């Protein structure tokens, strides 16, 4: 097939990617959108295989079989709670693939300086994405500490790495060669920089980091597209880049912080909030049942703790019982609840909660004072009224779900420890707050048992 014809098919593939993303705009059409996008990918790969100057067949078949099987097994086995870890690893494999494409493209002899620059970009962005994603995976899966790692000269060290990387890249471009020591220096420094960039970011900020790395993996593909003069890589890569940037932006806004603040501040080591003291009012499952039975409208507010306790199924069961009892049930989801964008929604969807009951923060807050019972399950910072009232609080200014303005709030909590960011929560001492201590799954299950017993 001629290059022109192949490029024409690439246009068709790009159109399918675009339609696919468009249909992702609603849960009703999203499955079809994903299929369209997959068809686009199939076309792009198939016509590339008709090109004469490609990798030897035995290598293509071997590599595709190995990679494809790994992907298929992971996709079938992964738990919905572990989705952030999986996306982090996929970001990483996209990054390392771009690094290698760039590296392989250096073996073409007649590269222009512009091409060499784009090759280096794809190596640098790909390398950073790879090592950063592996570190993010380590933090998410708690193989290592998920806390922010901050040390004194961090910024100076990072600036040094960055300058060194740019210097090596320039030296490489002056005398490009696959055996240039500067090439290895650039690869090494890019990998190091990825690690250094993710180190100072704490666990609660992970949604931002995964989104950003997602974006980088697309930009790396984009740079690889420039390196080998291929338009489908540029189109697809920039779509992924845009998706990541948009999500990053939404996450930052939902925390009322700038991207720079998330990336560099080492959150949590900051100022001390005004200490809140007071008496908590514990409640038993029996009492909780009596209040819920009388409630006309109930809103569940899930957080990462729900995922940890695997409580989503019992929560859905309780939601259904409450509906049968005549109450209006909704699930209010803060944009940064969980460890990645939309994490809670997927968990609840897995537990068969219909998506029309999943409401966003902006929708629930105006009518929160009509909610009889707000049930907070494993969420903390996203419902902390200090974000609204206490100027000294490290999370001051962050938009929250105003559960404290509901008629009654149940907080399901293991014990009286503070949340992920280590911030005290005055919600626990509120007049209308009742604490249901213990494992979230067991607490909800005992309320469900009460409902079934009557």
């Amino acid at each position, binding site marked *: 097939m001629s290059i022109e014809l192949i490029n024409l098919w690439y246009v068709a593939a790009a159109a399918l990617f675009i339609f696919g993303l468009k249909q992702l705009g609603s849960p009703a059409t999203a499955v079809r959108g994903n299929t369209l996008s997959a068809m686009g990918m199939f076309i792009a790969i198939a016509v590339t295989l008709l090109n004469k100057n490609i990798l030897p067949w035995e290598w293509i078949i071997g590599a595709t079989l190995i990679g494809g099987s790994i992907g298929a097994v992971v996709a079938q086995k992964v738990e919905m709670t572990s989705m952030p870890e999986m996306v982090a690893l996929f970001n990483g494999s996209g990054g390392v693939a771009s690094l290698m494409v760039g590296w392989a493209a250096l073996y073409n002899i007649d590269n222009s300086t512009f091409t060499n620059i784009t090759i280096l970009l794809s190596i640098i962005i790909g390398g950073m994405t790879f090592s950063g994603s592996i570190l993010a995976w380590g933090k998410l899966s708690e193989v290592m500490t998920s806390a922010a790692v901050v040390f004194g000269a961090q910024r100076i060290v990072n600036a040094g790495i960055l300058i060194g990387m740019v210097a090596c890249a320039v030296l490489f471009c002056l005398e490009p060669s696959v055996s240039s020591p500067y090439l290895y220096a650039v690869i090494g420094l890019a990998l190091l920089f990825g690690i250094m960039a993710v180190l100072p970011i704490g666990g609660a900020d992970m949604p931002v980091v995964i989104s950003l790395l997602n974006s980088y993996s697309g930009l790396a593909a984009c740079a690889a597209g420039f390196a080998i003069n291929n338009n489908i890589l540029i189109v697809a890569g920039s779509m992924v880049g845009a998706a990541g940037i948009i999500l990053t932006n939404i996450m930052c806004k939902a925390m009322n912080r700038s991207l720079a603040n998330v990336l560099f501040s080492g959150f949590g080591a900051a100022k001390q909030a005004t200490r809140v003291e007071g008496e908590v009012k514990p409640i038993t499952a029996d009492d909780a049942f009596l209040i819920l039975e009388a409630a006309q409208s109930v809103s569940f507010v899930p957080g990462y703790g729900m995922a940890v306790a695997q409580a989503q199924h019992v929560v859905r069961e309780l939601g259904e019982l409450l509906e049968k009892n005549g109450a209006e049930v909704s699930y209010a989801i803060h944009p940064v609840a969980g460890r990645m964008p939309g994490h809670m*929604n997927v968990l609840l969807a897995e537990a068969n909660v219909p998506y029309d009951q999943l409401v966003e923060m902006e929708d629930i807050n105006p009518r929160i004072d009509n909610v009889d019972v707000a049930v907070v399950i494993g969420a903390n910072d996203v419902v902390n009224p200090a974000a609204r009232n206490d100027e000294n609080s490290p999370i001051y200014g962050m938009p929250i779900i105003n559960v404290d303005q509901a008629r009654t709030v149940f907080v399901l909590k293991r014990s009286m420890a503070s949340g992920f960011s280590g911030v005290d929560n005055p919600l626990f001492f509120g007049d209308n707050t009742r604490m249901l201590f213990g494992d979230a799954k067991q607490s909800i299950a005992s309320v469900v048992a009460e409902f079934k017993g009557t």
Partner: protein
Amino acid sequence: MEAVFLALVLMLSIFLGFELISKVPATLHTPLMSGANAISGITIVGALIAAGDGSDPLATYLGAAAVMFAAINVVGGYLVTNRMLSMFKKKDSDQPGGQA
């Protein structure tokens, strides 16, 4: 000239990407990310081409490794996205496999 043309493609697709993706509801942000993982597997096309004429065995090894990593993204990304999206059900619709 080629570079200018590619830059034009880049600019247009970034704008289009922003338009399309800002309309994706928060509920679908996780599938959006895994779907983006799958699309970023487009690097597989680059990997097939980049190793090119096969003059140097090292380029072939790099290309093959890149094909493998990108294939993880393509296959894994689309399958897991499909798995997740199939879980999103509207109320009162049939729920195959769900408990009554």
